[in-house]
C-alpha cells in the first residue's frame, strides 16, 4: 500500500488571490507529515487539494504515484478528520464508523467486525451503541479517527483536529495519534498552527506562510537551523537582531552589531552571506546565559525589565542598553537560582551565547507580526525562500 503524496508545481488561485504559490513537495508513504503555519497561510487549502475538495488551478497531485486529477473526493484513497470532526449526530457510534463501509456495500457482519476492531484500537470498546452526542470531546475525537480509518485510507488528512480540546487532553491525544499512526502505518498529513503539535508528532514539518512553503525539515532541524527569518520567528521563540556581515569562516560568521559591538553566529543553511550584507541574527532565549563583561563570547549588555517565573524556567524581559530593543532570556531554574540576586528588575547584566547556537540569515525586513496577539502571521514579502 503506497501512501506517498506528491505535489507537482501546484498552484491555487481564488480570483486574483493566490492561496498557494507554485508548490512542489514529496511526502513519503507512512510518514507523519505536518503543515505548520498561521491561519490564512494556505495549509487548509493544500489539504483540500489533496483530498479532492478543491481542484488546483495548476499542477498535479499524485497519491501512491498515481495522478489523481479528475478523481472525485469519494473515490480518493484519502480520509479526512475535520476540525469540528463532523461526526454524524443522528447516528450511533457504530453507524458512524461503518458509514464508509456501508457505502462500499460491505455486509453487515463484516462491518461490525471492522468497527469493533477499530473501537478497540482507539480504546473505546463497548461504546458502539451510544449516540455520538453522549460522548466526551476526547471520545468524539477517537471516533472520528476510527471512522476515517474504517475505509482503510492510504492517506489520513487531519485538519487541526485537536484545536477544540483543552490543553491536557490535547497533549494526551498527541501521543495517541502518534501511536495510532505507528500502528497502522498510514501516511498522516496533519494541519496545525500549533508548533508544539507539529514538533512533537511529526517526522517532517513544512512551515508555510502566505501560500508558500518556507522550509521542510525534521522538527529538530527546523528548530535548530531555520532557513528563513519567518521560520526562525514562527517556530519557537527567537530574538532577532539586525547586523551586518564582517567576514565569514565556513559556517561561522563575524557580525557587526553596530552599537552592540561585534557579534557572531552560524550561517543559516544554504545561505550565501557576502561581506557587508545586511543580516538578521537569531538567538533563542534559552541559548542566552549570564556572563561577565570579561567573557570572550559574543554578549549583550542589558537592563532587566521584568522577571516571569514559569515554574520549570524563568523568562526575563530585558532591554539592550545600546539600542533599547527587547531581548528575551530564558533560564532554567537552576541557573536562575544561582543568579537569583542579580536577576531582578532594574539590574544591568551581561548575557552571552555560543555562536554555534545563533543563526544568521539574510535580512528580510522581519516578519509581519499581529499587533494584538504578538504572533508572527506572515513572512516578509521580500525574503520568502523558495523551496
Amino acid at each position: 500500500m503506497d501512501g506517498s503524496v506528491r505535489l507537482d508545481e501546484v498552484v491555487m488561485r481564488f480570483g486574483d488571490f493566490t492561496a498557494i504559490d507554485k508548490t512542489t513537495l514529496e511526502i513519503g508513504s507512512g510518514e507523519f507529515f505536518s503543515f505548520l503555519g498561521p491561519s490564512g497561510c494556505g495549509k487548509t487549502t493544500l489539504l483540500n487539494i489533496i483530498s479532492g475538495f478543491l481542484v488546483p488551478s495548476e499542477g498535479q497531485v499524485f497519491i501512491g504515484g498515481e495522478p489523481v486529477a479528475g478523481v472525485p473526493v469519494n473515490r480518493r484513497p484519502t480520509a479526512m478528520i475535520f476540525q469540528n470532526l463532523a461526526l454524524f449526530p443522528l447516528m450511533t457510534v457504530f453507524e458512524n464508523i461503518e458509514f464508509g463501509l456501508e457505502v462500499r456495500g460491505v455486509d453487515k457482519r463484516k462491518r461490525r467486525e471492522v468497527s469493533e476492531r477499530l473501537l478497540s484500537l482507539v480504546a473505546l470498546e463497548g461504546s458502539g451503541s451510544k449516540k455520538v452526542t453522549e460522548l466526551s470531546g476526547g471520545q468524539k475525537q477517537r471516533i472520528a479517527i476510527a471512522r476515517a480509518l474504517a475505509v482503510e485510507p492510504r492517506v489520513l488528512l487531519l485538519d487541526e483536529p485537536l484545536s477544540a480540546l483543552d490543553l491536557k487532553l490535547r497533549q494526551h491525544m498527541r501521543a495517541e495519534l502518534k501511536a495510532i499512526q505507528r500502528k497502522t502505518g498510514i501516511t498522516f498529513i496533519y494541519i496545525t498552527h500549533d508548533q508544539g503539535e507539529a514538533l512533537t508528532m511529526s517526522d517532517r514539518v513544512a512551515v508555510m506562510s502566505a501560500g508558500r512553503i518556507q522550509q521542510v525539515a525534521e522538527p529538530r532541524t527546523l528548530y535548530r537551523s531555520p532557513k528563513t527569518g519567518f521560520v526562525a520567528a514562527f517556530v519557537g521563540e527567537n530574538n532577532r537582531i539586525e547586523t551586518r556581515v564582517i567576514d565569514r569562516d565556513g559556517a561561522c560568521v563575524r557580525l557587526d552589531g553596530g552599537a552592540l559591538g561585534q557579534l557572531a553566529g552560524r550561517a543559516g543553511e544554504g545561505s550565501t552571506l557576502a561581506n557587508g550584507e545586511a543580516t538578521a541574527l537569531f538567538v533563542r532565549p534559552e541559548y542566552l546565559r549570564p556572563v561577565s563583561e570579561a567573557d570572550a563570547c559574543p554578549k549583550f549588555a542589558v537592563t532587566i525589565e521584568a522577571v516571569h517565573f514559569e515554574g520549570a524556567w524563568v523568562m526575563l524581559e530585558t532591554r539592550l542598553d545600546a539600542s533599547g530593543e527587547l531581548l528575551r532570556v530564558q533560564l532554567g531554574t537552576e541557573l536562575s537560582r544561582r543568579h537569583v540576586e542579580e536577576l531582578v528588575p532594574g539590574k544591568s547584566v551581561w548575557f552571552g551565547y555560543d555562536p554555534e547556537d545563533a543563526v544568521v540569515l539574510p535580512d528580510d525586513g522581519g516578519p509581519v507580526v499581529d499587533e494584538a496577539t504578538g504572533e508572527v502571521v506572515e513572512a516578509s514579502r521580500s525574503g520568502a525562500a523558495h523551496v
Partner: protein
Amino acid sequence: MFRQLRARFGGPLAASILALLGMWLIVMVTLPQLQMIEYSLRPNLLPAQIGGPEDQLTLANYVTLFNNEIHRAIFFKTLWSSVLVTLLTLAVSYPLAWYLAKVATPRQAALCLLLLIIPFWINEILRTYSWFIILAFRGPLNEVLLMLGLIDRPIRFLNGDAGVMVGMVYAYILFMVFPVYNAIESLDDNQVRAARDLGAGTVRTHWRIVIPHAKPGIATGCIMTFMLAAGSYAVPALLGSPGSRWFTQIIYNWFFEGGNWNQGAAYAFLLLVLCIGFMSLVMKVFKVGLGDIAK
C-alpha cells in the same frame, strides 16, 4: 408566560396582550368551531321547527357521507390527491431548497427567493387563472409543445387531475420550500463533506445525511401543504374537471347551494378530523414532535 410578559412590558400591557390572545383563540377559533360541531349534530330544519320536537341531537349528518358512495369516493380521492400533491411539492421543493441553502451564492439565493415570492403578490385566484390559460387546450403550453414537435396534437391538461396537481404544487410550493430550506440551511457543510470523503455519492449523501437532518422541516412542509391542499377550494374549482371534484367543493355546495348548513358542517368537521389524523400520522412516521415543527 404572564410573568415573562410582565417583566418585559409591565402588568397592564401584559394582561391586555394575554386577553387579546385569549379573545382571538376563544372568539375567533374555538367558539365558531364549537358552533360548527353543534350545527353538524342537528338535523336541517325549517326555522319554524327549530326548538321543536324534531330538533334532536343526531349523527345522521355524519352517516350521510358513509351512505353516499359518490361523496365517499370524493372524500378519499381528496385525501389521496392531497398526499400526491404533497409528495409532488416535496419533490419539486427539495432540490430547490438544497440549491438555495447550500449551492447558490448569497446573491443567487436572494434573486431566486425573490422570483419565488413575487408571484405570490398576486392573489391566488388570478394565479390559478393564469394556469388555466397556460394549460388550456389551445393555450400557450400546447402551442409551444406543438412547435417543438414534442406532441402531434394538443393535450387536454385540464381534463383529469393533472391541472389540479400543477396548480396546487405551484400554489403551495413556498410552504414547502421555506421549512425545508431552513432545515437544510442549518446543516453543517462538513457533514456533507465528511460523507463525500468517506465515499458516499450524491444520492446516499442526501438519503443518509441531509434528509435525516432536514426531517423536521420536511415534516412541517408536508403537513402545511397537505392541510392547504385538502382544504383548497379555488384550485380544484378552476382547474379541475367535473371528474376531479374536491371534497371542499361538496362542502361548499352543502352550505351555499344546498342550503344545508348542518350537513355542510358535518362534512367540514370530518375533513378537519382527517387533516388532524394525517398530521399525527406524519409526525409519528417521521418521529417528530410538535416542538420540532414549531422551530
